[in-house]
């Protein structure tokens, strides 16, 4: 498509054309109306002047008859101006007046008529237009009183030509303006199309140009940019997930395969096979667990789980999770206590919140176990708390274990992120990620704070659940 063709096809240009046509028709109509009215007014004025002349002449005639009338006409027709006079005998012989030639028969009919004529002193020139009134006097005398229409015609012509010019101007300026505006819009749209094309091509970092004028195209571009931002974040998330899945599922899968191969190669007797198969099952259970956790996170992050949100008591969740993990904590030499005295109603997905808190408790027990603690220090302790703070509900698991170094805190929330020294502990490494995803699902957040010593993991949820408008 040529550049010009593209330009003509734009909505802006088509709109310009429509507006231009409507505007030109409107202007033509307006000017036509104006011209017609001017002409009418002029005609009225001329007839009034002629009537005044006529009444003056009628007076002369009444006082002095034809003779006096002829004298008066003779006098008046010598004065310069646009008034026309003529008086003839019944035979058509001119007695006085300033009208030369007239078309034949004009004088025969009394009354108003618009006619061509030639002036007496200019009998070779072009015929003029005039409006005249004809009278017939007794004894066949004919009197003509009238007025030249040149002024009227000139004015009319001026108006018409002005009209033509202005319409031409409107069309030219309109076309030029439309052209200019269209080109401007087209340029911006072209820039957007160009960027979009690179984005479609796979480069998600591109952003649509924003001029800063705040007009509708800018707003559109800003919204599209926000959308791109979100898509990019999602894509990044997806890529991270697939990278992590590749990494953390491949490792146990490789182990699984190696063990099976090893068993086939070197197992002696049923006991060896049995052991190999048992470890295979164990490994695949672990894989399944990781997989389930990933699905759970995906579900929490997609926002789909918002459908089954209900009102529940956060304190009851804390007590339930505390009670579930208390024996395990005790077995590991930790004291677990629940501090959730008051019922706190919160809107959310009970199951997911329970699981998130359970994950935090599980982590706390895993990492705060008192293996290398100084014997005289405070006893290892885990507190599961539920309390409200302003319009937020806090579900907390606090321990006084080794904690997480400040620099690592945001990293551990990432999927599969397990600090190097904790690689020896069992677990999918998804516990904190899931807790964070659940918190985000509810419009809240997961915070990791220094418990001095130890770690305090807080799931802060808005009491009323997520704000619905947030996609």
């Amino acid at each position, binding site marked *: 498509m040529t550049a010009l063709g593209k330009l003509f096809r734009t909505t802006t240009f088509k709109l310009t054309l429509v507006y231009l046509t409507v505007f030109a028709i409107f202007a033509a109509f307006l000017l036509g109306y104006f011209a017609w009215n001017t002409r009418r007014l002029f005609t009225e004025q001329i007839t009034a002047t002629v009537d005044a002349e006529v009444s003056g002449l009628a007076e002369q005639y009444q006082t002095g008859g034809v003779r006096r009338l002829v004298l008066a006409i003779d006098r008046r027709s010598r004065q310069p101006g646009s008034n026309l006079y003529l008086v003839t005998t019944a035979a058509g012989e001119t007695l006085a007046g300033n009208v030369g030639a007239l078309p034949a028969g004009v004088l025969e009919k009394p009354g108003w008529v618009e006619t061509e004529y030639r002036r007496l002193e200019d009998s070779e020139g072009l015929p003029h237009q005039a409006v005249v009134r004809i009278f017939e006097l007794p004894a066949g005398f004919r009197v003509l009183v009238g007025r030249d229409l040149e002024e009227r015609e000139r004015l009319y012509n001026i108006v018409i030509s002005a009209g033509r010019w202005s319409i031409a101007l409107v069309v030219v300026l309109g076309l030029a303006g439309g052209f200019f505006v269209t080109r401007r819009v087209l340029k911006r749209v072209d820039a957007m199309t160009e960027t979009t094309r690179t984005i479609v091509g796979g480069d998600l970092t591109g952003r649509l140009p924003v001029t800063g004028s705040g007009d509708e195209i800018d707003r559109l571009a800003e919204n599209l940019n926000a959308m791109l931002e979100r898509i990019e974040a999602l894509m990044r998330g997806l890529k991270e997930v697939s990278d992590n899945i590749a990494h953390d599922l491949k490792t146990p899968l490789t182990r699984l395969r190696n063990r099976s191969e090893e068993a086939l190669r070197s197992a002696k007797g049923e006991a060896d096979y049995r052991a190999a198969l048992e470890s295979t099952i164990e490994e695949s259970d672990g894989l399944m*667990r990781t997989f389930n956790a990933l699905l759970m996170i995906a579900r929490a992050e997609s926002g789909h789980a918002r459908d089954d949100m209900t009102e529940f008591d956060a304190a009851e969740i804390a007590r339930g999770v505390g009670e*579930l993990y208390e*024996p*395990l904590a005790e077995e590991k030499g930790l004291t677990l206590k629940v501090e959730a005295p008051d019922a706190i109603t919160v809107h959310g997905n009970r*199951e997911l919140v*329970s*699981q998130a808190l359970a994950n935090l408790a599980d982590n706390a027990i895993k990492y705060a176990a008192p293996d290398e603690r100084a014997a005289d220090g405070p006893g290892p302790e885990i507190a599961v708390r539920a309390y409200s703070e302003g319009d937020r509900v806090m579900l907390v698991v606090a321990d006084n274990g080794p904690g997480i170094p400040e620099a690592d805190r945001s990293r551990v929330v990432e999927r599969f992120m397990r600090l190097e020294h904790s690689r020896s502990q069992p677990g999918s490494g998804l516990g904190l990620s899931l807790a964070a995803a659940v918190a985000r699902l509810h419009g809240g957040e997961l915070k990791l704070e220094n418990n001095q010593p130890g770690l305090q993991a807080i799931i802060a949820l808005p009491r009323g659940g997520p704000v619905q408008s947030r996609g």
Partner: protein
Amino acid sequence: MRLLIVEDDRDAADYLIKAFREVGHVAEHASDGEDGLALALEGQYDVLVIDRMLPKRDGLSIISTLRSKSVETPALILSALGQVDDRIKGLRAGGDDYLPKPYSFAELLARVEVLSRRRGGRGQETVYRVGDLELDRLSHRVTRGSEEVVLQPREFRLLEYLMKHAGQVVTRTMLLENVWDYHFDPQTNVIDVHISRLRSKIDKGFAQPLLHTVRGAGYMVRDSAR
């Protein structure tokens, strides 16, 4: 026990039929929803194992049709959809249990056995007895021999569930679902610790243990003396 397995995946169905036969049950198979419904309507089965997604008629529709015709055969739904709301939908349609894929056969077997014996089971009894262990559901008293055993409320519910299904394997997931009402994986085997606590209260100091661990499956309360 007679089972009907409605499953469109031939491999999975064969595996299940074989595994159930090995432990002494009779399993029949239907590979689509219509056949499954027809068999379930005419056959005398103890438990139905129904895949959620089937050709011709889906699993939930089979169950709700059966229930509307007053066929109350216990049904277990197998599903690749393991989310909480899917489970709720399954139970609402009239299913009695819900097991997300992939599952271990031990888990499925334990659940099927519990379902098969639920009818005419111990639901109505007020006192459960296993050997010399006695649990009174009304007074919440537990005694072993002549001694009273003091249990925490949750320990009581744990023992109650185990004794209700005495002689049957109860898996960790079943305990987590029925005693704690949690449907997620708690990563660490927290249930084991609860069990060992309970065991120390009811079995410690007695010659005959009643609470047994079933390797690779779960737990069972059983009077091994008989």
